[in-house]
């Protein structure tokens, strides 16, 4: 009866922990409603906004991981169900050897009724070597669909292929996603239930141990594809993640194909499919492995794309107001879209100690110890829940990278608000060579500002408790930035093939299936 035994396999202890979280968070949130705590009105308002966001996101997370049995019952999968399958491998500018490996794995599927297509976007991407993909397809004995009319980025590429193919099920792989031979045999039987529109499996990074960036990327994915997607699945809210997904063609066509007017086409398409009353399924089992971004710039671009897409959905097509979705589905989609507002909240939190240390402006009047009495239990329970629900796999690096991503999230938010045009850029499959230290300049600038602010505050007030607490907060922020700064300053090493081994670290236990 150790902790793991307690919380991972048991529903009741997890429920008790989540209830304790709810109560503690409510008590913590009430603290913010005490008017006697208000110092500088504007700063208090900003902090209040930030804490409201934190509290809301916490409740949404607990709602997601609340251990329920699947609300929408599924019929058992029928292994006699045997539809035709089209495998789409979306290709834009990836190295040929990577595409070839993915194509070979698709071809080697044990499932017989399949056709493999390379969806070549090289021509519309104006790549000189676009014909090499066609040659590769010929060499491997698979089909190649080269799009000649641009538009819609990856979604446009898939929609183009949808028009030219006719398999009952469509399976989408990114160019680097190498599937295990039983990928189709594992996924397709679920479609015997005619209400199932898509089945998603995790996006595993086989290069996750190569460097700090790949590590951080995978560690963040691990949380998403672990408790979060498992939870979403229970509410019939798992969404298409762009790759490693099987989709029923008829369902996809009913919503007009993949959504082309958003760079997170998969997210919006999922919403539309769920609006039509279809069911979705998430299989928490690694069935294909790809490549994580290997350098800071690729990581930045990938995260930026996700942030931009999600924020566009939030501000332009808010899922909460979509008809046809259940309340839990609305909340689940809203939670996912809201995640990228975090950058703004982090920015507010970063400013507060600096403002106090430089100018002595206090957002709150209460003693910091009084605040800590409410804040620390809230924080403790939150982290404990995250730790236990992620099967103790959450890492400091993953959290630190999320925190350090505030720059790209702010940038995405600004782009969405100003409606700046943005093209779809594919995540690089090889480490980009170059100097990406500039991506950490905001974090370094913050560090320098904090050091100066400490000098100013100590000169002005000495080491009194308020100054010490704000110094500690500034230190907290700098410490959280450290892994990102370190990664940005580290030269990316090119990966040798021997390092690219499949290490399926875990197969997350099936839940709610």
């Amino acid at each position, binding site marked *: 009866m150790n902790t793991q035994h307690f919380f991972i396999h*048991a529903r009741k202890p997890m429920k008790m922990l989540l209830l304790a979280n709810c109560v503690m968070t409510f008590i913590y949130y009430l603290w913010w409603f005490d008017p006697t705590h208000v110092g500088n009105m504007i700063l208090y308002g900003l902090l209040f906004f930030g804490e409201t966001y934190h509290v809301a996101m916490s409740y949404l997370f607990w709602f997601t991981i609340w251990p329920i049995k699947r609300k929408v019952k599924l019929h058992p999968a029928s292994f006699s169900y045997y539809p035709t399958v089209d495998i789409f491998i979306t290709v834009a500018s990836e190295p040929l050897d990577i595409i070839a490996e993915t194509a070979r794995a698709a071809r080697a599927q044990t499932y017989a009724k399949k056709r493999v297509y390379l969806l070549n976007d090289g021509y519309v991407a104006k790549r000189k070597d676009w014909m090499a993909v066609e040659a590769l397809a010929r060499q491997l004995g698979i089909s190649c669909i080269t799009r000649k009319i641009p538009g819609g980025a990856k979604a446009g590429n898939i929609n183009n292929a949808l028009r030219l193919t006719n398999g009952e099920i469509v399976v989408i792989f990114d160019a680097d996603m190498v599937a295990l031979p039983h990928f189709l045999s594992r996924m397709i039987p679920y479609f015997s239930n005619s209400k199932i529109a898509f089945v998603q499996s995790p996006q595993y990074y086989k290069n996750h141990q190569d460097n700090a960036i790949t590590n951080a990327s995978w560690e963040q994915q691990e949380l998403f594809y672990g408790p979060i997607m498992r939870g979403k699945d229970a509410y019939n809210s798992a969404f298409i993640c762009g790759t490693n997904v099987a989709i029923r063609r008829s369902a996809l066509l009913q919503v007009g194909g993949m959504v082309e007017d958003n760079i997170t086409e998969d997210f919006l398409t999922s919403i539309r499919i769920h609006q039509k009353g279809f069911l979705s399924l998430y299989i928490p089992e690694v069935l294909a492995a790809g490549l994580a971004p290997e350098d800071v710039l690729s990581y930045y671009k990938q995260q930026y794309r996700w942030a931009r897409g999600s924020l566009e959905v939030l501000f332009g097509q808010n899922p909460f107001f979509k008809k046809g979705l259940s309340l839990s589905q609305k909340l689940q989609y809203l939670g996912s879209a809201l995640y990228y507002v975090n950058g703004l909240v982090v920015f507010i939190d970063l400013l507060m100690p600096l403002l106090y240390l430089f100018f002595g402006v206090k957002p709150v009047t209460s003693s910091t110890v009084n605040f800590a009495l409410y804040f620390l239990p809230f924080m403790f329970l939150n982290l404990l829940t995250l730790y236990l629900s992620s099967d103790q796999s959450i890492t400091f690096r993953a*959290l630190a990278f999320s925190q350090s991503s505030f720059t790209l999230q702010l940038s995405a938010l600004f782009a969405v608000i100003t409606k700046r045009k943005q093209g779809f850029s594919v995540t690089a499959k090889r480490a980009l060579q170059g100097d990406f230290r500039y991506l950490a300049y905001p974090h370094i600038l913050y560090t320098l500002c904090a050091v100066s602010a400490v000098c100013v505050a100590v000169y002005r007030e000495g080491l009194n408790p308020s100054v010490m607490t704000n110094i500690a907060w500034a230190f907290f922020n700098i410490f959280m930035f450290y892994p990102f700064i370190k990664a940005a300053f580290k030269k990316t090493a090119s990966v040798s093939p021997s390092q690219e081994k499949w290490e399926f670290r875990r197969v997350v236990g099936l839940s709610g299936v």
Partner: protein
Amino acid sequence: MKRFITTNYGYLFVVILSCLVTISTLIFQSIRLDEAQSLWVATKSVPEIFHLDAQDVLVPFYEVLLHFWIQLFGTTIAAARILSFLFFVVTLPFLYQLGKEAGNRKIAIVTITLFSLSPFIMWYSSEAHMYTLFALVTTVNHLFFLRFVRSHGRTGKFGYFVTTILGLYTHYFFILLLITQFAFLLLSLLTNNDFEMGVQNELKTQTNRSFHLLCTWIAILIFVGVCFLPWVIYFIESGAAANTQPLIPPPTSSSLFQAFSNFLLGFQSSTLQSFFISLWPVLALSLFLVFTRNTKQEVEYSTYFALATFLPIILVFLGSRIRPIFLTRYLILVTPTLFFLIAWLLAGYQNRIARLGLALLFCCMFALLVYQNIASTTPVKENYEAVANYLAEHATGSDIIAVSAPFTIYPIEYAYSGNTKIVTIPYWNRLQQGAIPKYSHANFIQQMKSYQTQYIHLFVVLSYDQGYEDDIKKYLDTHYKRITLKDFSPGLEVREYQLRYGIITGLRYL
């Protein structure tokens, strides 16, 4: 043993160094209130010890042990303190065993090092009072309780039974540990019946086991209750310690932080303490590090350790809303598990930063241990010896010494060697009247007036404000001429007043 010493010489060195500091403290520091009280009680016969303890908020186990100890080694304060130090030393192997059985050797070693470096623990290791005995009994009780749980009630029963009785006879707060253990067993039972599919059969057995365990535990507790009942009856019959409880201020939010700051960093001046407490965001950061460890050190029953550390504190904090009982030293029972938890969390990190962090923590704790023992601003310091020397030098047979609070008469009496009469405010005859009488302003005025005709000077020794210190000061300052006012340690002062002018004094003023 040899291998243990050679592989852990660094830790051993730290422990020995810390012990040396404590030994120097126990030899050279002034007697404190609690010590004097314990020594005074321990010099009586065993039935008298029972009688005196029952009138106070004490249980008699420690005083009985001290009674026999001083028969062998004398009544000097250093000799009495060595007994407490021995309890501390004996705790170490048990704590090590607990750490090893619940975690591993590394956790066990870090636990005992933290325990030995804690200025809080070391303070009470050099105090002739029951606190280190309380920590020892608690540690052994944890060990037997975990053996009892792990073996599903087959082993550890007798050891648990004995240590529970001893614990209850050492300090009333031991009940908090029993509440924690009950909570843990109940939680185990409640959380065993709703597991995911696939492990139902195994867990059905486990639910039965948990139920059986809880029943066995309750049965043991019934026997413990039978053994403790005579004392409860005796205590109630003796007046249930009316008016003898020291006045404790109700705890605030900072009391909780102070408690943890005390456990880790000892009793420091208010400035230093505020400095450390204001660094609490670092604690928030450490929570991030704690819950994102790459290296997992499996610990059995971590829930129990967490409960045993935090639940007593929460209960006392909440209980203090009804009647203030929140004193850090009463909560010494949480320290073995607290240090175990810290060791567990730190031991999870293998890299350089973790080692550096641990080394920094050790250095910081050691530096604060030394500072606590030498600084005059240490809030728990009670320099009654200096007071006694001052009185011996200045008070004569025609003067009178009055101490308040009344129970502070013990250390004054112990250290004072002069011939001036010593009384208490309010007046208290320990052997005839029993419990301390309640303070009344009218009685106090009457008491002072009676001295006016008999004595020339009044030396008032004030410490441990019980809520009427200001009243005493105000009355004396407005009715008598104050000659001197001298501070000896935080909260301990002597005031000298002129009650009347005698022949010699009159000549002095001529």
